């Protein structure tokens, strides 16, 4: 967002034209995912309310905030993984390339091969390294010759910065890898189906600092080909890795809200909302 838009926004907010302000704030030239008025509740309780945000193509957007503010819920809403949670009700719109992913014509199965996900704790399948990475390709019914399959697995492992470490033991069981390697394996597995967007839910929270650094590096190296959205409660990680940062915060009813969004540098040095400032300074959250 540039200086003019920022001033405009401020003026609109102060003059009471809040809706327009939201529109402006979320207007991206090249947004691959646009979220509009998203609210998610589990049975009667709202986890997040009225979230509107754009995720820019080929960028890394970080979602930060204290525990329990709904960051994971927001992330899961993007690839309809919330569908698998009993009692979860999604209101509002999530537009992927202009199509509302919650509309009846969209098949969540197809959606998830476009928007991949990596989880907090590494969850490789109990199979060989090769089979793990190949799983998505095999399941999606993509017919490949043995050589082509090998090539794609190799590509994915290279992108995930794991190839060098496992290239001689692709048949080894996934559980023989260390935690950091397993997580990179999960990233390779997700990349193998060639999604456009990669969602990561606190991917390094259970890893040591070296593995964390490796993963942060690889995310930066692949962002030119993917759009990456990463939830993290580690502000330093967000500052290191992301181009844009969204800040979420629970309101007085403990419902998660989006309180700040902008280029990472700005959010961290000149935050608009005083709660963001307090959070970054460590005074809250």
């Amino acid at each position, binding site marked *: 967002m540039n200086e003019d838009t920022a001033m405009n926004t401020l003026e609109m907010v102060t003059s009471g034209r809040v809706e327009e302000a939201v529109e402006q704030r979320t207007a991206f030239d090249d947004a691959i995912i646009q979220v509009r008025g998203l609210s998610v509740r589990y049975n009667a309780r709202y986890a997040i309310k009225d979230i509107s945000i754009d995720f820019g193509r080929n960028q890394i957007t970080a979602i930060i905030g204290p525990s329990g503010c709904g960051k994971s819920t927001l992330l899961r809403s993007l690839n309809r993984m919330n569908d698998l949670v009993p009692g979860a009700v999604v209101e509002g719109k999530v537009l992927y390339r202009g199509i509302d992913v919650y509309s009846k014509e*969209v098949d969540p199965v*197809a959606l998830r091969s476009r928007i991949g996900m990596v989880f907090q704790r590494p969850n490789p399948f109990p199979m060989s390294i090769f089979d793990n990475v190949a799983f998505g390709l095999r399941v999606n019914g993509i017919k490949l010759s043995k050589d082509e399959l090998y090539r794609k697995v190799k590509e994915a492992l290279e992108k995930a910065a794991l190839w060098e470490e496992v290239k001689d033991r692709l048949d080894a069981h996934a559980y023989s890898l260390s935690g950091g390697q397993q997580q990179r394996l999960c990233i390779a597995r997700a990349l193998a189906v060639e999604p456009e967007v990669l969602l990561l839910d606190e991917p390094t929270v259970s890893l040591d600092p070296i593995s964390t650094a490796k993963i942060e590096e690889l995310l930066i190296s692949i962002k030119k080909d993917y759009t990456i959205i990463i939830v993290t409660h580690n502000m330093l990680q967000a500052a290191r890795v992301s181009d844009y940062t969204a800040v979420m915060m629970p309101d007085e009813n403990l419902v998660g809200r989006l309180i700040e969004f902008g280029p990472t540098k700005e959010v961290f040095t000149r935050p608009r909302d005083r709660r963001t400032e307090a959070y970054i300074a460590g005074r809250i959250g």
Partner: protein
Amino acid sequence: MTERSSTALLASKSIYRRRLINRIVQSAFLFASLVSTAALVVIFFTLTAESMSFFTNVSVIEFLTGTKWTVLFADKHFGILPLLNATLITSAIAVAFATPVGLAAAIYMSEYAGKRARNLIKPVVETLSGIPTVVYGYFALYFVTPQVLRGLIPDLGIHNALAVGLMIGVLILPIVASLSDDAMRSVPEDLRLAAYSLGARKYQVVLRVIVPAALSGIVASVILAFARAMGETMIAAIAGGFRPILSFDVREAMQTMPSYIAQVATGDAPHGTIEYQSLFAVGLFLLLITAALNFIGIRVVRRWEIRY
């Protein structure tokens, strides 16, 4: 990287096929799940239909209040009370045996036994419920009655309710032991710690804190065991005798409801005769009682599960 158009999110041939396969499997598996429900419906209707034929010839009042059951004789009386009484008596004996023994075993397994001992004891106790009931019947008739019980009660009949009750008790002991053991193990640790910190000795913690806390689970296990005892056939058929009599003397032979059904089955009751129909009336009656007991038992279990 392959460029994918947004419309590809919608139908695509391979996605369509995969979705179709998923749908088919889902419906097929739903159909399979309905088998158990269908079975219940069949059970209910079959028993009710034949019972209705039975009750066109027999008054329900006589059935429920009569004290003579002579269906297999020439002079037919249709009072279920002798059979019901025998069933209740043998089941009561079984529970009277299984509850203290099973509870004691459960207390030992969950509170006193070390890990290795427990891993040895629990399967052994479970084995008791895996032994075919004909084997128990054999043991009751040829060993327990002549060698053991007659030593204590010399005028015990060769077929008697006591032996039947005792062997059924051994059969259902694992039910009480296992469920009570689960109930006691799920008592939260902080209750134990609180009792110890107040200066209680272990036996006081066990008897005054854990067992009362686990009580609903223990009671549930007893109710379910009682229901299981009522439905037991072979032990009663082998060791209890085919004598439908309303008696409270456990040294005598008496015929339970399942044992009567076994007797009719052993003989020849042609389709459509009153003897044949009596199978269904007795079966329905037995089912209603055990179903009621199981219902109560499951309710009690659920209340215990919710609490923890």
